[in-house]
């Protein structure tokens, strides 16, 4: 079976991991998976879906994109009898299965963790990216958490530049350290790449700063930094292996003509900290 794995964000660390794991599972299942990435362009993705529908692939897997942004093309695929599933996406008409982390929950976990570390009081900087629907949910979760924690204040916020979020976060953090270095207690990063950039800046310019950073994804580079007792103190890890695995299992069933028991499956998220990694930092 030809399976088209389609995303605009293949070079995003998390998306890339999901795709890689899914490709392995696909190989194991004997499918012929090919990855199509449109380098951030959703309009292009619409055209490419039309193409694979014309090529009559066996299934379409949309990764890290909201199918609602491509509703017509998804409908066309469904009409052609091609099953569409999503990973790290959303449910939508025509999408048989969405396997994801609950992004709002990821955001809540991150916010709770960070606020807890600050003792419910302090100033944070927020690195966000609303253009990605999932990442946007995390921002909404932060807003909710802020409502419950009136002593936490957002004193700086930055809309990330994508692609190139690490470098962007690094530069912005350098500047923020100059302007508000003593004010900021923590950095809330909507995912790990901005967290990594922030850590690089702090490590270079103010290594003894008490600022703590936390992000989302369980990005291996971030995990390494946590292990090395950097300023990154936590990441809410998404279980990409599990997500890709659930997606592959679901697709197996669908291709066998069955219906998945649920239209949306969540992979559990878990918090990674120095403690869970078994290191004790000073």
């Amino acid at each position: 079976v030809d399976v088209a794995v389609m995303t605009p964000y293949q070079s995003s660390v998390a998306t890339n991991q999901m795709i890689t794991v899914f490709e392995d599972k696909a190989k194991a299942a004997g499918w012929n998976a090919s990855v199509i990435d449109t380098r951030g362009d959703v309009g292009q993705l619409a055209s490419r879906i039309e193409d694979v529908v014309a090529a009559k692939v066996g299934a379409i897997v949309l990764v890290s994109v909201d199918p609602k942004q491509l509703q017509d093309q998804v409908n066309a695929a469904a009409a052609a009898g091609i099953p569409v599933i999503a990973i790290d996406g959303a449910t939508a008409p025509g999408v048989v299965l969405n396997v994801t982390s609950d992004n709002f929950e990821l955001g809540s976990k991150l916010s709770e963790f960070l606020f807890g570390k600050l003792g419910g009081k302090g100033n944070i900087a927020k690195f966000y990216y609303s253009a990605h629907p999932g990442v946007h949910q995390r921002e909404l979760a932060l807003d909710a958490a802020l409502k419950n924690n009136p002593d936490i204040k957002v004193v700086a916020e930055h809309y990330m530049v994508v692609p190139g979020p690490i470098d962007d976060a690094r530069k912005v953090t350098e500047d923020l350290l100059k302007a508000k270095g003593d004010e900021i207690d923590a950095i809330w990063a909507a995912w790990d790449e901005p967290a990594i950039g922030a850590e690089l800046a702090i490590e270079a310019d103010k290594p003894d700063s008490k600022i703590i950073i936390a992000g989302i994804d369980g990005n291996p580079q971030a995990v390494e930094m946590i292990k090395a007792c950097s300023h990154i103190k936590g990441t809410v890890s998404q279980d990409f292996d599990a997500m890709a695995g659930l997606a592959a299992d679901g697709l197996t069933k669908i291709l066998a003509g069955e219906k998945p028991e649920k239209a949306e499956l969540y992979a559990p998220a878990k918090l990674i900290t120095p403690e869970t990694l078994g290191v004790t930092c000073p």
Partner: protein
Amino acid sequence: MILLRRYGTLVALVVIVAIFAIASPGAFGSVANLVNITQQMSLLAIVAIGATLVMVLGEFDLSVSAVVSWAGIASVALFGAGWPLALVFPLVLLSALVMGVVSGVLVARFALPSFIATLALGTVIGGLTFWVSNGATLFSGIPPVFRALGRGAILGVPVPTLWLAGVALVFWLVLDQTEFGRRLYAIGGNREAARLVGLPVRRDMVVAFALCALLAALAGLLLTARLGSAHPTGGGGYLLQAYAAVFLGMTAFREGEPSIPGTLLGAAIIAVISNGLTILGVPSFLQDVMTGAIIIAAVLIRHFGREGD
């Protein structure tokens, strides 16, 4: 040989289509797919036609992608606020026209290099777009009539294709048959000479930039209608591709000048390559390698026709 030299790039398109059709007769070569390609190229081609006008002047408008995004976000935001289509559509186009006039005035009246003026203006427009959208993708409130402007088909021809046909026809006539078109070529060929024979150089330049922005906004509206959502950087992909289409088109005909038929040809080449490679199941990274290689080959063809010159 003469065929190669004269119409090398056109020959290239024919060859590319032929190869894909042989490799995948059922899927690529089907009438439905070929029709679909005209739809897929339509928005890019509309932006590229606007870029052609400015390129005829020998200038760049780098704000096109920002204007595409702006038009999408502005329209959905207005729909969301309950405005009717009959107002939203012209208003968004008008806003783009104003943006184009600003670029044009900066370039024509204040002699800023168009590259820097339009890049800077594009940054400003991008900021406005983020401000209006809060950086998020906007979905809600889009009326179905509006969506119909960018999808579906009339008598088997996809609606975006019809838009493209209309725009291409109008602007081909404008560039090729009207005094305005001739003046643009004269200005682009030698601005000082155009000024010295009394052409309204500044006014014409401003009009060209304004039309370019207008077409970018039209593409943005159609993109939004097609996707049913607007993304604050949704136009990002159009910038380089639109100019690639124009430049490819410039290699298409003998004189090396930008032209509407040339630009259509360029956009078609780009669209056919992506469509064909995807249908053949070529993975993305290899698609990139092959796309680049095919484009270079398409332009080189003409050179070999020209050898011995």
